[in-house]
């Protein structure tokens, strides 16, 4: 064969041509990546390399909490107190909600947002109140999610607040590929906001629409920050991670009621330790007619609806 094989031996001309093309390519890629300049503050190396919650030693946890306090102060201008509240021994939390009494005022929704440092813009809410017609169907597809009444309750309807059911058999925990969400000894399913990769598989798995994703960086006005924070609870979240109702771990693990229970004007919301036979929730489960939402899915919620009559 008289010709050169096409691929071997690079002449000077082809080298020059190749390097021109290459540098043009690099320039084009750089131009393409230009939006990254607006990235702003990038997380620290410590944040990037932070270990999984369950693998942190107490000393490491202390450092992590201090770092998070710094982060919050830098971002929101308020010094918070971040603690790692642990489950209490002999406690399993259960929630009971009286459907006969609930008037759909949504005070719980807003108290929850304020307590748990949820993003205000876009606003993230853990509790969704459904307005359902009193027509004997109990059909979710007839639910009104966006009712805007001048006063509640409206005749002909009843209200059904839905939030995380803290399932005993949680589908969200089962599907998480990195175990960033798990069930604690007191029955609360929590999220490690520093471990979640943001795949949103748990959100697809949840039958109660209980999980919320940070589609962008959350924003909370400085004066609205609740400085009593817990690591697995209400500390501010990051862009791109999942969050959910955690029964106000920063309150309930310190012996207080969740914000939604405290604020409810009708006393529809009951909360307590199911392992204590004298607790209010134990009494309700023993004596009231109870309804479990989507019981057929076998998720075994720790959240019960009950009726007065």
């Amino acid at each position, binding site marked *: 064969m*008289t*010709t*050169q*094989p*096409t*691929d*071997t*031996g*690079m002449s000077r001309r082809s080298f020059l041509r190749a390097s021109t093309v290459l540098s043009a390519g690099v320039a*084009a*890629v750089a*131009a*393409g*990546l*230009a*939006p*990254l300049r607006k990235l702003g503050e990038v997380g620290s190396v410590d944040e*990037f390399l932070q270990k*999984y919650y369950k693998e942190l030693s107490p000393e490491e946890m202390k450092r992590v909490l201090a770092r998070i306090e710094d982060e919050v102060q830098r971002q929101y201008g308020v010094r918070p107190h971040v603690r790692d509240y642990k489950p209490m021994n002999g406690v399993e939390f259960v929630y009971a909600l009286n459907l006969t009494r609930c008037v759909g005022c949504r005070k719980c929704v807003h108290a929850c947002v304020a307590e748990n440092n949820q993003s205000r813009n*876009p606003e993230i809410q853990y509790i*969704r109140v*459904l307005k359902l017609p009193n027509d004997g169907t109990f*059909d*979710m*597809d*007839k*639910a009104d*999610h966006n009712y805007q009444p001048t006063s509640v309750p409206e005749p002909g309807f009843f209200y059904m607040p839905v939030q995380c059911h803290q399932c005993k058999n949680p*589908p969200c925990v*089962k*599907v998480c*590929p*990195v*175990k*960033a969400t798990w069930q604690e000894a007191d029955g609360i399913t929590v999220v490690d906001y520093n*471990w*979640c*990769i*943001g*795949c*949103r*598989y748990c*959100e*697809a*798995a949840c039958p*109660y*629409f209980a*999980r*919320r*994703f*940070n*589609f*962008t*960086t959350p924003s909370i006005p400085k004066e609205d920050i609740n400085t009593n924070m817990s690591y697995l609870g209400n500390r501010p979240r990051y*862009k*791109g991670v*999942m969050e959910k109702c955690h029964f106000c771990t920063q309150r309930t693990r310190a012996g207080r009621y969740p914000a939604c229970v405290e604020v409810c004007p009708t006393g529809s919301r009951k909360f307590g330790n199911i392992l204590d036979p004298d607790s209010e929730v134990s009494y309700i489960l023993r004596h009231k007619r109870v309804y479990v939402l*989507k019981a057929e*899915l*076998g998720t075994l919620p720790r959240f019960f609806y009950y009726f007065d009559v």
Partner: protein
Amino acid sequence: MRNYLRFLWRCAGVAFVGDWRYYAWVGTLTALVIVGLNAYAKQFVAGLEITGMSDQVSWGVYIANFTFLVGMAAAAVMLVIPVYIYKNEDLHDLVIFGELLAVAAILMCLAFVTVDLGRPDRFWHLIPGIGVFHFPGSMLSWDVLVLNGYLVLNIYICGYLLFCRYNNRKPATWFYIPFVFVAIFWAISIHTVTAFLYVGLGGRPFWNSSIVGPRFLASAFTAGPAFIILALQVIRWATATGMHDPQHPHEPPGEAPRAKVKRAANPGDLERLAVHLPELETVSADERRACLEGATLLEAAPGEVLLRQGETNKEAFFVVSGRVVVRREEKGRIRTTRNVGPGEQFGEVSAIAGTPRAATAFAAAPTEVICLPEESLRRLMRSPKLEEIITWRMGERLMMSDRSLLILRSIVQVSMIINVFLLANEIFSEFYNSNSHDVSWRYLILGLNGRHALVPWFWTAMALNITAMVILMLPLSRRFKWLNAACIMCIFGIWIEKGMGLVVPGFIPSPLGEMVEYQPTMNETFVCIGIWAFGLLCFTVFLRMAVPILQGELVRANES
């Protein structure tokens, strides 16, 4: 090892060489990749907020494309099965193309999953050993394993086969056949596992149906081979006009002179051949002498023709020295099918089958060739080793024949019928007995409560799939114009069916009955286009490397 690095280096080098069409195609794809990169950079800064996704519809076109492409990757196996299990030689080289497509498709899958992550910087949490891997609990962790495993398997198999071809060595059975069989099961597993991602969610009745897995396989085995049918024709078209060797000066030797017979072949010529064809040693001296009866030694100057397409004569040729190019004229276009070096044979297929010469062979350098009558070839092939090597080489040819495309056609045909049948089953069971499970289906097919964003998508997919199915069932789809139209319809129809028709409606209405619709945003669309361009770019480059190796143009023998 050095040999292997040299092989990789030359493969990489060849990817940068081509004619203007190649540069135009690669350039366009690169530009689109950069557009996608730009859109992704914007998303990286703003968050997934700039997609159309929401808490209600938390997966969109990214996961839709991912699901579709897992199917494309799995479908490569449809080419492997006939070749390795049924020994259908027609599809032999196509296996490598299919597996290269699988590699490109998996790369796209990984890209689509990555852009869907809220925290791509934390991907290391998924790496077993370093992060926390929820296996076997989470189906997503299964998917991570099977997809990456499939990627490695396919890279290994293609790489090994091409490397052997490059060295003109027969692949050692134990080095790849076990992997091929593993890959077959693995391919089915990647798609089944992906289906289980959805099927496993009890809270989503639209997905929680056992027929979704079989439907995934059926649609994958429709869209994958349909894509390969189109890709092969593009390769055929591109190689026909010499896309990969712009500097080839040899015009098709229309009136070129014929090579002259130098003399009768003698045992010394066979000795010289045996240097390049050691298997010849297994033939006894008596047999070899018998072979030489009627054999001649031809001497050809560059450009001289050794045999011409269309002739009928029954000799086989073995190259002793020099190089022979085999070119085939098809529908007015000329395509190099082989580059034959010392120790290799040509013309043996028509010698054995008695068919007219399928191609023209001419010398590309001063060449010596032993010309054996049919009788002698059969005598040589009585040696099992020699028979093996000769038939292996017959099989290794780049055969993108019409026949192989038609075999693929029947795969697409059957799969599409099964796919439509399974879909009909699903729709019947949902609609005949109206219950709460059918709300998403109603929304998808008819619209619900005045919302019908997905209705046009669904009916477009149905129209495409059913038209394609009808065309494929008619004999007219043996004509390529119709076949190609049907293939394009299959690919788009199934892309919609599995994407906007499966991923999105699973979220609508939400588990609490809320109707929130989903439309991809511009930025999201650009990211998708970028990833598709990236995948096509990978596939193009892979083919650019593989085709010359399969044609024998890029071989160890011509290393400089």
